């Protein structure tokens, strides 16, 4: 029986879940939830999950949010290849460590750059002070340094020789600031090489397919209707500015 995946591919964690499902041939049905249109606040989605966040999974009567939880659940349920979340406790712990750290680090900083560089000025039409932009880029740089120096070190992937859930969760976050036009990989040969390995392990076609929407962001914002975000404007500005 197929699981239902409630996704908006503009969202980083939705991309990691979809890549994982497709790569592992997990029977699934995608239900698109448009964050820009506020569909996460609709009645229907509220019945799926009180938490009202994407990605969300429904498997029969069981519903789940938060991409690390969803990925772990799918890995276990569908008995995906061991390298995604190895049985070895130390490798597993390395992955859990990354999944924990990234919430308030790479995920936060990458999102912030995306909103400050693109969405807030181009869609909300609010000017972003130069210092705030620079500070956000620097925070992102610090996170990328930690990804390289602490989580990768001299390993090909975060947990060792093979791709795992940690790399998957990491790569989709790294792609977000790429999508707003920031040169994330410039001057970072290690990150570049890791990105190439991750893309190869996932499969370039799948990777590109899932990232198609977000990578078109710079073009799309020109046609985007900013009024749809009006109700969230205060919250967004409070969060990122």
């Amino acid at each position: 029986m197929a699981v239902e995946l409630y996704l908006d591919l503009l969202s980083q964690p939705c991309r990691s879940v979809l890549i994982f499902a497709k790569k592992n041939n997990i029977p699934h049905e995608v239900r698109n939830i448009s964050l820009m249109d506020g569909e996460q606040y609709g009645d229907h989605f509220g019945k799926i999950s009180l938490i009202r966040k994407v990605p969300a999974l429904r498997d029969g009567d069981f519903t789940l949010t938060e991409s690390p939880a969803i990925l772990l659940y799918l890995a276990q349920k569908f008995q995906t290849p061991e390298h995604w979340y190895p049985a070895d406790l130390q490798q597993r712990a390395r992955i859990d460590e990354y999944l924990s750290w990234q919430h308030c680090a790479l995920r936060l900083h990458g999102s912030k750059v995306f909103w400050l560089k693109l969405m807030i000025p181009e869609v909300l039409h609010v000017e972003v002070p130069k210092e705030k932009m620079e500070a956000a880029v620097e925070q992102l740089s610090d996170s990328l340094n930690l990804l390289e120096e602490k989580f990768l070190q001299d390993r090909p992937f975060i947990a060792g020789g093979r791709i795992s859930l940690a790399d998957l969760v990491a790569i989709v976050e790294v792609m977000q600031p790429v999508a707003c036009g920031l040169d994330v990989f410039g001057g970072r040969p290690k990150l570049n090489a890791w990105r190439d390995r991750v893309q190869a392990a996932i499969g370039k076609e799948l990777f590109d397919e899932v990232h198609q929407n977000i990578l078109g962001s710079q073009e799309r914002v020109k046609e985007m209707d900013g009024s749809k975000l009006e109700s969230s404007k205060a919250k967004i500005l409070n969060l990122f500015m």
Partner: protein
Amino acid sequence: MAARQALQVHLDLLSQPCRALHILLACTRLPHTVRHVALRRGEHRTPEFTEINPMQKVPVMVDNGFILTESDAIIKYLVNKYDVPDHWYPRQPERRARVDEYTAWHHTHTRPHAAKVFLLEVLLPAQTGSPVEAQRLVGALSQLQETLDQLESMFLRRQPFLCGDDITVADLLAVCEIMQPEGGGRDVLQDRPLLQRWKSRVRAAVGDAFDQAHAVLYALRDRRRAKL
């Protein structure tokens, strides 16, 4: 030589995730050594500590030479590795997923929102000597209220603990964050009977370990009260 004492944890009990780990270790009686790291005295920035954890944060676990950071990773590792009661981090996939869901959500809600109140009311004024930034505190309290609302309506809806019928590591992580503003004399659960009942259940489940872990926080609160 007892191999188990090869488990070392580096903690500062003023830190919320350190307390959650401390309580789990006490409840499960896993033999371990505690190395205290006084954040207030900058002990996390010493060369010795930085060698163990370049990110200069606590808690850190060293298990027979294996170094691990991030409290949820440490807690899950210990529960997976050692023989502890299943309820802490259940093996049954759906129950485990509920804990994974909370521990992820925790990072973007409970942890930052409760910590910010403590930061604004206690840490920043202590470090800078400036008065509390009232406007920012109002904002932080409002954000925390929203998070507490969500804890009640999303996680404690029709169940005694955050992830089901029994206490899990999620409850430990959450309660320690919610306790933090008490260091500044603020009980954020004051008008929230549902969360108060949950907190009582958590305290009952962990026994003396709760107050033992929070002794340093209580001492801070009492010292501040004495100054008023």
